[in-house]
């Protein structure tokens, strides 16, 4: 009889736990189906030089970050200094994908705020963005030396996130290849 009294409490506790876990999850962070798969191939002109093209194959053998950005993107303004600093202070290869931007605006942006990218691909129509499943700029993919996407960060990278998550992951991926 005593045990019976505890049943509703146990059920209640289970529901609270379930809802509690639910609350800590951010519905805007949709897991990418591309994790563990090769970066979708693309050949795009670079932001700096429309004659030159760039694609993920150019970085084979290197662990790199593929950062999707745009000059019209507000959060990118917060993220950009973090990337600039990261490129300067750490041994990081950051490849940019300028998403649905205007070339002149993008060039202004890089000139005024600094350019942390080894190169930025210019995805004027956002087609490569769709192939990458981009839905909220900025997004950052961590790609290993074999060209496999290992992780995707959605939203602006902060200094803390860079230090606590991105750099250790890059280090780990470099060690394993």
């Amino acid at each position: 009889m005593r045990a019976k009294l505890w049943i509703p409490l146990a059920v209640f506790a289970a529901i609270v736990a379930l809802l509690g876990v639910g609350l800590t999850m951010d519905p805007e962070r949709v897991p990418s189906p591309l994790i563990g798969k090769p970066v979708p191939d693309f050949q795009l002109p670079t932001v700096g030089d429309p004659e030159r093209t760039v694609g993920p194959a150019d970085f084979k053998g290197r662990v790199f970050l593929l950062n999707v950005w745009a000059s019209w993107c507000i959060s990118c303004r917060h993220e950009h200094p973090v990337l600039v600093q990261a490129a300067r202070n750490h041994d990081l290869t950051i490849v940019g994908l300028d998403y649905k931007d205007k070339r002149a605006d993008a060039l202004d942006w890089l000139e005024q705020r600094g350019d942390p990218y080894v190169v930025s691909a210019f995805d004027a129509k956002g087609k490569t963005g769709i192939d990458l499943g981009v839905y909220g700029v900025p997004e950052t993919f961590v790609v290993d030396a074999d060209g496999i996407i290992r992780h995707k960060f959605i939203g602006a990278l902060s200094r803390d996130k860079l230090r606590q998550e991105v750099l250790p992951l890059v280090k780990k991926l470099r060690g394993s290849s």
Partner: protein
Amino acid sequence: MSRLRRWTLAALLGLAAVSVGAVAGPPVADQPEGLRQFDSKAQEQRYWDLLGQLRCLVCQNESLAASQADLAEDLRDEVYTQMVDKGKDNEAIIDYLVDRYGQFVLYQPPFEPLTYLLWTGPFLLLIIGFTVLAVVVRQRRRAAADDGLSDDERARVAELLETESDKDKGA
């Protein structure tokens, strides 16, 4: 007074214009969406039905058919191109989107190991609820039937009740 009001309105409108400008997205697609041509009415219907089943990832409670988000526009373009220009069927288009955005784009996820609980959960809860209800009702009924009296006592109760109701009749 009305002058002040006019100024306030102008200021508000100005503010609204500035804030709209600040959040303005990237340039829109080349062809206005209203000008899309379909091969048939049925195809147009299929197009909108399909878009209605797909979630816009930017504003997650809206379908691709309803959303005004920039990405939704691009994806509508993509669905249109694949359906009308390339003649792909719904399944191929859904696969295309799921490959890129995951099953989250589907308002109706498939029935597979990961989603068994999702699909069957409500029915399981219903069954559990009815079971608990049945058990409780049966217990109550048994408790009500068992009043803890002996046969003698019960006879006495009947007798008392009878005299009581006789009195009522007499009154």
